[in-house]
């Protein structure tokens, strides 16, 4: 039975000359990642020092910046941007599910807090989790 053809990476030929490095794009992505990180940390630190806004207002911008960083790491450094579209879809679809799930669980947590958690019976039951002697 004929074996399926499989992919082989390009092989080294004896005496082949070593090409010059092609690294400009790598350093460009590095500067982008550094800028995104500095914006994130800088905003958080400035808010810690000067309290120009409530912490909750910063949460969604932080998540957006984090996803931007993730995009550059996955599509550029991991070369996913150069792969076939079908292969990329493996990850993009999974990512959408992950993000939706995160959102759902955060909403669930908020619901738990407002509806259920701070009734006296419940607080008594989980007292040992609060580091002792909390309430």
């Amino acid at each position: 039975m004929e074996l399926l053809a499989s992919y082989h990476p390009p092989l080294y030929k004896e005496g082949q000359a070593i090409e010059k490095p092609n690294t400009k794009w790598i350093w460009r992505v590095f500067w982008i990642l550094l800028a995104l990180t500095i914006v994130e940390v800088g905003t958080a630190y400035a808010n810690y020092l000067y309290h120009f806004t409530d912490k909750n207002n910063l949460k969604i911008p932080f998540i957006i910046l984090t996803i931007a960083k993730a995009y550059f790491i996955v599509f550029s450094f991991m070369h996913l941007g150069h792969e076939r579209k079908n292969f990329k879809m493996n990850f993009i679809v999974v990512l959408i599910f992950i993000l939706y799930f995160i959102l759902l669980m955060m909403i669930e947590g908020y619901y738990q807090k407002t509806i259920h958690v701070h009734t006296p019976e419940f607080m008594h039951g989980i007292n040992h989790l609060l580091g002792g002697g909390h309430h």
Partner: protein
Amino acid sequence: MAHTATEKVDANTAWGGNAAPYNISWGKIMMWFFLISDALTFTGFLLAYGMQRNTYAAEWPNPDDVFNHFPFLSGHHPLMFVSLMTFILIMSSVTMVLAVEAGHRFDKKKVLMWLGLTIVGGAFFLGSQAYEWTQFIIGTPEGKTIGDTVIHGANLTRNEYGHQLFADFFFFITGFHGTHVFSGVVLLIITFILVANNTLQKRGHYEFVEKIGLYWHFVDLVWVFVFTFFYLI
């Protein structure tokens, strides 16, 4: 660097048989699939963290009040040390990509150089994480008074800073990530030895470096999310 994967092929050529549909080697695809599964594992942990953090938002400590140490400096410097850790890990990701790129050009010397720097970055990150854990466990000199005892720091049974689950999640998730960094460093050292021994040169291609590179970038990617969720949100 030729990217034959970006040639347009029709569905029948790709999936009709006797071809590699994604035009990538089997080993690389399996590494990608492993990374997806690992990403879902970390997602599960971060989901649990997100939910509990919202449930107990009233008792949840503010990370700026907990993680504010910096080596050799006194006083409170929130976010500074963890930003340094993030920068080190991003740098190690950059050196990893440079190693992979050198591998594409069969430039053995450069591969060794960039791999070595990546290993140093990873080891630096592990040491920094150990410092962060130590400061968290030691706690503040004032501590928290409970009844007639004063507790300092946080571990799996008590937390001076606030809700117990904060400490539990911190140790578990950063510990799980740290384990990945550690195993990544071990794999990088193995890769370094394979390159130095000419094993990959004899094999004719440096794809091994590329697969380990994928794992290392995944470790960096997870850290980006862990850093955001624990320290900023």
